[in-house]
Structure formats: structure tokens, C-alpha cells
């Protein structure tokens, strides 16, 4: 070798020896790498490669594995089901099933549910908080909010969501059920633990929008839309609602849940409007609270008008019983008087 280089140096100096050296070193490593590539090849399962291509690639961890490649390996080995991927759309699951050559089973979608229904104006006894604007920090300060269970409203969950499915509306997270995948990142983010992931056995789904374990009186002092454990829901909807202690619990079991319409009475009659229906078709579940207030006002106005009419008609006929007109609904009141 050195003699060859000496000859090259004599013939053409560095102009020849330099490229020659680089060429030799390059060639040496190229041969080494080629041999290594063949000798040390890791057999990659072509199905796994195809599966990684087909999966969403969000690496959200909703399946319980570190990322999509690991999940692909798991389904290829049969350790996981395609439907375990919470971020996959139906087409993705179908594509995955096709690669595997199996029939896709439709899993029940899992979605985030927020167990607090109070916007800023409904949260009482809430002094000004001047500090780091994250729920985690705020939660460390004693007495920042009357309700020690409810949402703090600084949006840690919204920031944690990899799918941008949570928006903060007047201090309350609202889940967009069209984009939510139920990956559960928000559960980790919430310092108060008011978020759970539930199986959407129906859409819309009945949800208790309160987490307070306080007694009714205490809840009323802290919040205008908290669960006071009055038990109306358990009476109207005994199959799904239970009030074991100070908080209503919704039992999500496919056999007992029933159909959507079954829960309307309980939702309507909940005195603090903390039973909500949430789902893809509902823009803002808290709208119901406002609608109920509006309806209450309208009903009162209608009743007042009715009474006036009755009073006007009774002036010409017999005098009506005053108690009946106030208590009963408008049509029955009319029958009574005639």
C-alpha cells in the first residue's frame, strides 16, 4: 500500500493520492455495510409494514402501547384488535382488517366525558386567581374555588388534546364528539380528575355533569348547576340513574341503558340541569340549561296570560276557584272553570 501511494505521489502528488485514499476508504465501508446489511438483516413482517402505513400514525397512545408501530406489531401477532385503535376511522379499521384478512368488528367508540357543567358564571365563591394560568398550578392553591371538585377552567385538557377536540367555552371544556377519539390524554391532564372516557353505547349519551361529593346544601352554596342528589333522576330513570350518596351516577351497561328517548324526562326534570345529553349531534350540551330557563320564563308568562283570560271570563260567569287556576296546567284549568 505505502509503495503504491508513494508511486502515486511521485506521479501526480496529492491530486492523485487524495482521491485514491478516499475511494479506498469509501469502498471499504461500502463493502462492509453491504455485507452487514445481508448478514444482519432483521426480517420485517410485510404485514406489519403495511399496517403501519394504514394506521393513523398519530402515536396518541390510546391503545395502551407507545405508538402506532408497536400497535401494528401487536395486531399482527394477535395481541390486539384493530378496533382497539381509538383514533382510527371506520375506513382505517376496514383497511387494517383487509390487510389482516379478517372481518372487522365494529367496536363501541369511546369518548371523553366531562363531569362538570358549570361555566364561570355558575361557579360561586370564586375569588380572583392571579397566578400561573394552568389548572395544575391553580389546583395547588387552597380556596381558589368554592367547589373543590369542579372544573377550574384554565384549559389544561384542551391543550393536551392531540386532536384539538376540546374547546373552552366560558371556562368549561366542551368536547367535539366528531373529532374526539377517546385517547384519554385529557384524563391525565386534568388535575381534578373530572374527565372520564366512556363507551358511547348511544349517541347522544346521558352524562352526569357534576363531580361534587359534597352534600346538597354545600353544593348549592358553591354552584348553581351542581348535583344536589335530590333523586328525581333515579325515580324517573331507575334503570340508568342511581344516587348512592351525594352524587348521581349513570350506569353505562348496554342491557340497562335503553334508548335515547328514555332519558329525556330525567334530563328535563333535573332541578339543577346537571344531567346532560352529549354527542356528535349536539353542539353545546349546556344550551339545554339556557333553554330550560327560557321555557320556564315563557311558561310563567303563559300562565299569567291564562289567569288573566280566566279572570276576564269569570267576571261574566261564575267566580273560579283561585287555587285550581294557579296549580293546574292551562288546558285542565280551563276545563275546571267551565
Amino acid at each position: 500500500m505505502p509503495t503504491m501511494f508513494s508511486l502515486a505521489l511521485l506521479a501526480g502528488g496529492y491530486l492523485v493520492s487524495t482521491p485514491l485514499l478516499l475511494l479506498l476508504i469509501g469502498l471499504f465501508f461500502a463493502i462492509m455495510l453491504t455485507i452487514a446489511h445481508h448478514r444482519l438483516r432483521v426480517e420485517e413482517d410485510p404485514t406489519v409494514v403495511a399496517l403501519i402505513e394504514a394506521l393513523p400514525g398519530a402515536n396518541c397512545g390510546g391503545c395502551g402501547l407507545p405508538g402506532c408501530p408497536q400497535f401494528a406489531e401487536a395486531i399482527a401477532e394477535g395481541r390486539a384488535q384493530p378496533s382497539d385503535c381509538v383514533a382510527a376511522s371506520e375506513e382505517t379499521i376496514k383497511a387494517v382488517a383487509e390487510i389482516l384478512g379478517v372481518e372487522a368488528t365494529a367496536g363501541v367508540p369511546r369518548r371523553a366525558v366531562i363531569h362538570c357543567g358549570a361555566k364561570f358564571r355558575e361557579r360561586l365563591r370564586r375569588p380572583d386567581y392571579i397566578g400561573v394560568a394552568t389548572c395544575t398550578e391553580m389546583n395547588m392553591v387552597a380556596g381558589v374555588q368554592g367547589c373543590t371538585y369542579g372544573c377550574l377552567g384554565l384549559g389544561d385538557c384542551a391543550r393536551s388534546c392531540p386532536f384539538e377536540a376540546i374547546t373552552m367555552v366560558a371556562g368549561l371544556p366542551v368536547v367535539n364528539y366528531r373529532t374526539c377519539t377517546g385517547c384519554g390524554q385529557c384524563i391525565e391532564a386534568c388535575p381534578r380528575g373530572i374527565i372520564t372516557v366512556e363507551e358511547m353505547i348511544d349517541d347522544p349519551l346521558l352524562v352526569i355533569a357534576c363531580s361534587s361529593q359534597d352534600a346538597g346544601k354545600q353544593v348549592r352554596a358553591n354552584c348553581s348547576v351542581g348535583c344536589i342528589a335530590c333523586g328525581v333522576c333515579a325515580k324517573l330513570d331507575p334503570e340508568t340513574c342511581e344516587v348512592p350518596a351525594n352524587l348521581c351516577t349513570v350506569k353505562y351497561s348496554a342491557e340497562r341503558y335503553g334508548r335515547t328517548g328514555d332519558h329525556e324526562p330525567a334530563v328535563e326534570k333535573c332541578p339543577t340541569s346537571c344531567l346532560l345529553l352529549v354527542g356528535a349531534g349536539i353542539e353545546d350540551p349546556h344550551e339545554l340549561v339556557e333553554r330550560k330557563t327560557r321555557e320556564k320564563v315563557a311558561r310563567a308568562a303563559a300562565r299569567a296570560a291564562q289567569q288573566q283570560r280566566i279572570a276576564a271570563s269569570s267576571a261574566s260567569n261564575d267566580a273560579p276557584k283561585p287555587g285550581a287556576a294557579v296549580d293546574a296546567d292551562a288546558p285542565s284549568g280551563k276545563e275546571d272553570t267551565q
Partner: protein
Amino acid sequence: MSGVTDLIIAFLSIALVNNLVFTKFLGICPYLGVSKKTDMAVGMGLAVTFVLTLSAAMTWMINNLVLIPLDLGFTKYIVFILVIASMVQLVEMYVRKFYPGLYQSFGIFLPLITTNCAILGTCLFIDLWGYGFLKAVVAGFGGGLGFTMAIALMAGIRERLELAEVPRPLQGAGITLVAAGILTLAFMGFSGMVR
């Protein structure tokens, strides 16, 4: 000075006093890029340590056994890059084949650091300082550990910064660079202790 003391001083010199990140400003890209989470940062640091130790040994041999005898020392810049890149590829394949667990934990960083300036820089410094083989390997290892310490410290600071209320114009890269600057100033305290 006995051999062992010499090695210890070489180690401390490159790990603390002449830290790659804080005094040589090498390897800033991973230092700022992969320092968001401590576990990721430590993984990256260990991968750098591993590659740097191997590269230091490899490039010392190439330099002293091939380039200098042939009077082609000036090609070391190109040759070192070539050697480091090929060797890291080789090591990556080997680790992937025989140590899948190890590959999962830091193998993903290996391709990222083949062209890292901290690696090439250290190899060139070792040549410049005229270290012997053993000293070169120790210096490579020390440089890697120094880098690991720097990136782990930075990651710890950045995890705390997540909770802090940062003024709007300084958010993101701004406060990160400020923190990096203050950290560098702190390490300036070591300067001049050892050459």
C-alpha cells in the same frame, strides 16, 4: 504525572471544564431539539456517549495509522465524517439485530447523530490536542457524558418552564435560549481549572 491521573484529568476536562455544549457550543441542535422531556434527553445523551466513544477510538486509529503515515492528514475532515457515518450505520444494524430492547430505547437516535457536530468536533479536538489512544477513548466517553449532563439539565429546566408563566414575547424558543445562556454562564465557573 502518572497515566491514570492524566486520564482522569482528560475526562474531567472534556466533561466539565471544556464541556462540548457549554464552552465549545457543539451539538446545539439536539441540545435544543430533543430536550423537551428528560427521558428522551437522557436517551439521546446516552446514544451520543456511545457513538462518541466508538468514534473517538475509530478516528484515532484511522488518523494515526493511515492518514498521518501517508502524509494525508488534511483529508481528516472528510474521512472522519465518512468513518463515523458508516460505523454508526454498522452499529445500528448490529444493535437492531442482537439487542432489540436496547434498539428500542436509544437506537432511534443513532441515525440522527451520525452527522452531529459534537461527534466530529470531539474527534478533531482529540487530534488537535495530540492525545494517545487510551486518552482519546476516555475523552470521547467524557465528552459524551458531559453532553448527557448538559441535555438532561436543560430538559429538567424546560419541564419546569412548562409550568411557569412566561411573558408572551419570550415564550417558546426565546425563554429556552435565555435558560441555555444562563446555564452556560454557570458552567463558565469551571473555566481555567484544567486546560
